């Protein structure tokens, strides 16, 4: 498969100051292997767009500890106390975005849409300073599309073309992030032959996937544990 690269080579596509779209909801659907590579790298000043920052010391939480991050854009950071601390100490910028707005903004980033008017957030401080417009008597606020220099996402399987399927709710933000990164790197548990994934089963068509990396973690008891 010519999209398959070594996990360490994935870092060649990521540079200081990049905006990274990182899949996952909590730790589910998170590219743990790629995040380990990043945490062990000297890449700095990253802006990460992700629903949350993993957990303390896990997933994206590792990048906080290792100091790769400048800014985080997402919907929920409260449960990672490292993130809260880093923000309080001025070491991490945080931009809070409602979860649905985040998903939609990323979809627009991949869809040639510059911005959209949403009904979410009207009357909240998150709408402060945002343009408003009335359509059919209802007020909406303008949100801008989000794009990434690189998307790092997690899928269950890729075929050798790069078509992807996801594990249940681990699909979450991964499918939209696959469309919105200038470069898209998918971490997968398994690579199968072309034709093994049915056309009706494929969630992310191969056009969106530039590189594929094999997950070094294996699942035991429903959780990814480091492979031996």
């Amino acid at each position, binding site marked *: 498969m010519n999209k398959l690269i070594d996990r360490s080579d994935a870092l060649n596509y990521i540079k200081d100051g990049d905006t990274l779209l990182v899949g996952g*909801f909590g730790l589910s659907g998170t590219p743990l292997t790629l995040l380990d590579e990043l945490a062990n790298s000297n890449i700095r000043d990253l802006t990460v767009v992700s629903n949350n920052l993993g957990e303390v010391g896990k997933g994206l939480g590792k990048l906080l500890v290792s100091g790769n991050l400048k800014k985080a854009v997402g919907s929920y950071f409260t449960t990672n106390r490292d993130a809260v601390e880093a*923000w309080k100490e001025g070491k991490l910028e945080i931009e809070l975005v409602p979860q*649905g707005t985040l998903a939609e903004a990323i979809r627009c980033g991949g869809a040639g849409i510059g911005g959209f008017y949403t*009904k979410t957030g009207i009357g909240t*401080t998150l709408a402060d300073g945002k343009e408003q417009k009335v359509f059919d008597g209802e007020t909406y606020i303008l949100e801008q599309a989000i794009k990434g220099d690189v998307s790092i996402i997690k899928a269950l399987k890729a075929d050798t073309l790069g078509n992807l399927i996801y*594990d249940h709710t681990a699909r979450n933000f991964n499918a939209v992030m696959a469309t919105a990164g200038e470069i898209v790197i998918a971490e997968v548990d398994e690579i199968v032959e072309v034709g093994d994934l049915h056309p009706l089963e494929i969630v992310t068509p191969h056009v969106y996937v530039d590189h594929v990396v094999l997950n070094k973690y294996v699942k035991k008891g429903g959780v990814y544990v480091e492979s031996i």
Partner: protein
Amino acid sequence: MLSQSERIKIAKRVAEELSEGQIVNLGVGIPTLIPDFLGDKKVFLQSENGLLGMGPTPDDENVNMDLISASKKPITMEKGASLFDSSDSFVMIRGGHIDVAVLGALQVDQYGEIANWAVPGKSILGVGGAIDLVAGAKRIIIACTLQAKDGKSKLVKKLTFPSSGTRRANILVTEHAVFKFTNTGTELIEILSDISMEKLKEITGVEFGYDNVKISSSKITK
């Protein structure tokens, strides 16, 4: 701290508000107890991380942490369940396709405006899907204690905590009473504990109508 029996009382009362066949999104905390009290009533649970048709917690050997609820707990899929990504999940939520959202709250004002995501003065670092649900669900039920830990009423004349949006809640279910919200203000529709009307007025400081109150304190299970 609310006792488990009071949490269950709130969950049971909210369960009565749900109807056969409804699409329901349950927030964290007390709302997650509701499925246990639905009896024969079939509702479809939506989880904003990408599932419609959420089933109960699996046995230990069937746990897959890639099949989880929005509270990040392992779940199962019911027959007829469907999976989708986050953007499609919020098409469902924001687009007005969820019949009922049952949410917790920090405050609710006398017209039903909700504050459920941020405390002023504290770091405001989490919003999740809360304000999407407030903006989009057809009916909003707030399930929470009447008073915060500091004793202050969560039902208030005017929000002092950041609003979750101009969309208002339909009803508020607490351990003591159930309130309905209309354009003209709050109406007490049911008393669920031994609390007196005077005490309820004293705690909340909100002028509520009470022309048609159901007294259900016999339901108390202490």
